[in-house]
Each structure stands twice: as structure tokens, then as C-alpha cells.
């Protein structure tokens, strides 16, 4: 089974909203604790190491893209 990146929720806005609301009223520290628990719960539900690794790689690419963007912006502002 491969990681599914097609839209799986009938109402994606509801899902996004549910996650956002779960963080309401939490400090950054509490939010990070909450996310850690949520990741572990969802990872176990998926229960497939290959899918988990694909998901980790996809999330990881955000970090790379973000740092490249930052570098490009810095270069652009120097020029």
C-alpha cells in the first residue's frame, strides 16, 4: 500500500477545522505535546512502516522547500 495523497475526506474543511480547534487554548509547548501524541496515535492506526516512511519523507520535504525558499529570498534581497 502506498501513501494516499488524494483527498480522502468528503469535507476536508471539517477535518482541518477539527485539528485546528483541538489546539485552541493550548500554549506552544502544550500544542507540541499534543501533536506528538497525535502523530503516534495516527501512525499506529496506519500500521504500515512503508506508508509511514513515505509520509515522513513528504513532511520532510516541507523543511527542505522552506529552507530553499528562505535562501532564495535572502539572495534576492542581496541582489
Amino acid at each position: 500500500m502506498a501513501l494516499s495523497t488524494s483527498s480522502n475526506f468528503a469535507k476536508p474543511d471539517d477535518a482541518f477545522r477539527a485539528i485546528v480547534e483541538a489546539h485552541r487554548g493550548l500554549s506552544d509547548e502544550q500544542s507540541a505535546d499534543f501533536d506528538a501524541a497525535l502523530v503516534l496515535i495516527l501512525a499506529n492506526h496506519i500500521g504500515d512502516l512503508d506508508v509511514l516512511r513515505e509520509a515522513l519523507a513528504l513532511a520532510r520535504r516541507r523543511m527542505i522547500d522552506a529552507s530553499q525558499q528562505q535562501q532564495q529570498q535572502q539572495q534576492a534581497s542581496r541582489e
Partner: protein
Amino acid sequence: MAQASNQAKTQFGYRRHPDQDRAGHDVAEHPVVVVGAGPVGLSLAIDLAQRGHRVVLLDDADRIGEGSRAICFSKRSLEYWDRLGVGDRMVAKGVVWSVGKIFHGDSQLYQFNLLPEEGHKRPAFINLQQFYAEAYLVDRIGELPAIDLRWRNKVVGLDQRNDDIALTIETPDGPYATRAQFVIACDGARSSLRKMVGAEFSGQAFEDQFLIADVKMTAAFPTERWFWFDPPFHAGRSALLHKQPDDVWRIDLQLSRYADPAVEKQPENVRPRIARMLGHDKFEFEWISLYKFQCRRMDRFIHGRVIFAGDAAHQVSPFGARGANSGLEDAENLAWKLDRALRKSSPEALLETYHVERSAAADENIRESTRATDFMAPNSHQEARLRKAVLSLAKETEFGKRMVNGGRLSVPSIYDTPLSTTDSDGWRGGPRPGASMPDAPVTSTANEDTFLTDSFVREGRRFTLLEFGNGADIDAPQEIGVIRIGGEGGLVDAEGLAIKRYDAEPGTAYLLRPDGYVAARFRHPTRSALDAALARAAGLD
């Protein structure tokens, strides 16, 4: 390091050997010299002697080491020691256990049983101070004239040549020279032989410090392994409590990575910590040691004619009982291969599979013990946060419990090895080629209750066919041993556990290596299939 209250149990004298008067072209030539009389070197020497070889065993000290050091010996190690004739004594003295409990704060998270089923000769583990294990092995060596154990003999020079090795050995009477076809280095984590062959020993060093205290007290705690995360008596860190023989308890406390070893190991500083843990201070110290550890291994366990085993070849953190037990697995893996190479019944290339199989096992042990260590001592805020999440989820979920890592205890590796013959029949269970043989209770023809591993002690010094009778005789090569279950003259599997554990049907046969690992298995073996599997397992094809 050790406190004075626990002196070495056994002291041995240096004796001058006639080899020391031989020089030049007259120096003695030995088939095997084993260096280091710890559990691994002692066991290997016994195994080789039982296989008919003369062994010189050298140790630079003249007594068995102080302190408990290794305490947990696995089922697999006990089965090996049964084959070496010392299993009963170890188990009689040891503390038998199979249950571990994990606590978080002051509540129990979960418990595990490492051997939840009946029908095994040996328990999951015994706890036994290393010095007892060594003393029993030395006693066994006293019964084997083929072993020449020389105390206060320190290897100081090593010169590899094409067909042998020239050794220079330092003694109280000065140095002498000797030669060996093979040198087996079992000289521990600080191996001087490893330095002599110029091998790297690299890996990961951990900054966290741990304090081991063996304390003597009478207590009613059960014989279980208790592990705490963040206990009330040692806030924010981990702790371990485990029983040994003689009313001695192993206590292991995680300390800060910034703790000052000289200060921390003073008994007056250790005592209040332990008293907080136990709720009283009616105990005496047997041994106190503060340690950091490393997980590392040699790239190659074989350097020419020098072969490394045990801590000399690989080192792990202590959480998981993977140090001494993996060293003993090295010994049982190497002994039969060296036996065949020395007899020239297999090419020396067979020894290469020792490196293949045992370096993969070392990688597995390092991986497991590194994961346990990282869980106990997280490396970053986020790792600590994930651990916190696991510990809190463990209270109400099964998956959380299984993610809590308080040490994964040693189990034998399954080898992916060129010595195995790939299955061609269908199997729903049973040990696959490369796995070690499971035990099962059986009844002998003389109506004695016994175990499969007992039969293997008798038959298993060579390749052995474990066959499940169907009335027909299997056409097996002459040189292999046979253990037959069922049929006329066979062992009786009254409880059906052998059949179950081997997924056996009438006619099923397992070809076992001399170390008790499965080389091949068949539903209905033909002579040609057996011959081919045997040749492969002996490194002959």
C-alpha cells in the same frame, strides 16, 4: 572501581610452562590459542576441547574479576552451557526469572513474560554474578586435560605469517615465544589484540552516566525485572531493580550526563539514593560502579588468522542483556566452524561465515540497545516530548505499552546466511533455516521425561537430522547424528509440542548445524537433497 567488600572468589597461581624454555626453531606450535579467560574465552575453549582439539587459553590476570558485571544469562546461553556440561550448575545457583514490569512514576504501566509457555528445559533467563559463571567454567576446564589454561600470560606481540601466527607472551618469568594456527581474541572491550592487528573500533558513545550498585539485603521483592521511568525516588530519570543469588540486588540508576563520577560513586552519596528507592537503609554495598557506554563493533571480526569474539569484537549498552549472551553466541557459532577447519573437513572459507552471521547479529544487538538507550535518555527536547507521549499513551492503549522501551532482552538472531538451504516446501510455522532450534518436552524409549535440547547435547556435536517418523527410514548420510521423534524407537512427543513447534508432519526432517541452528528443512527429504544441504551448511559447495 570495585568496592573492597567483594573480593574475587577465586585466585589462581601462575605456573611456569615448558613452552617457556623453548626458543628459535624449537618454539611450540599450537592449533588454537584463545586469549582471555572471561565467559566467552572459557566457553569457547571448552567447546573446542569437547570437539577433540588441544587449546591453550591465556589470561593476563591470575584471578576471576571482581564485581557482578554481567548478571543476566539467556535461555540460549544456558542451552549452550548444557552442551558444555555446566548448565545444571549455573541454573542451580542462578535466580530464575521471566517476568519484567515497567513502571512510570509510582504506577505500573505493564508487565511482560519472556517465556509464557511451558515445555522448555531452560527458563527465559537466570541472574547469576559473572564471577560464579566464570568459576564454574574454570572448574569444568579442570576436567578437560586438552585445555592448557595459563594465568598471568599476557600477549604482547603478534606477527601474522602465511600459515601461522607468532606470539610473544609476557609472564612473571619474562617473555616467551609460541606459535598458533589460529588465535581467538576474547580479551574484552579494551582488547589489546585488536590494537595489535590495527583494527578500528568505532561507533556511538553515549554521554549519559549510569550508576550500578549491587547491594546485599533480605527483601521480599519478587524475582522480576523492575524498570522505572521517572520514579518518585529518582525524579526525571530511570531505575532498574533485579535480584541476584546470595541476597544481592542489582540496582541501576541513570545519572545526569554532567555528574562527577568521583563524587557520585562515593558510598556516602550512593546510600541516600538507594535508601530512597528501597524505603530503608538496611543494606550493604557489594559493588559500586559508575559507567558510560558505547555501542560499536569492529568492521571485520576476522583479521587473517586472528578471530575476534565477544566484547573484543562488539560492545553494546547493558540494557537488554546483549553483551555476555551475544559473546556466548559468538563462541557457539565459531567453535564448530573452527573444528571443521582444523580437521580440514571444511575449507577455511567456512570461517568467513562466522563474520557474516555474527557481525549481522552484532548490528542487531547494537540497534536494539541503542534504541533502548535513546528512549531512556532522549537526545533532544522533541525526543523527550515523543517519549512523554508514549509513556502517557501507554496508560490506556496497548500500542503505547508496546512502544515503551525499557530494554529489549536478548533473543538469538536469525541468520541470513549462505549456509542455509532455502525452503522449497510449504511451512506454516516452525524455525526457518537460520533460526535456532526450539526446545520441546519428549519422553525417551526408557520412559524418561526429557527435552529435545537434551537429545541435542548427546547427538549435536555434529550435523544432526531431527526427523519426525512416518514409518519409513530416511536415507541419511553416515556422518550425521539422528534424533527421531515418533515411529519405532523414537522419542515420544506425548504433549504434541515438538510437532507444533516444528510445524511437523510424518516425514518432516530438520537438518541442524552443530550449533543447534536450522540449516535446512524438508517435508520428505531425499538423499540428494540432504547431501546438497549438508554440503552447503558445511561450506563445501
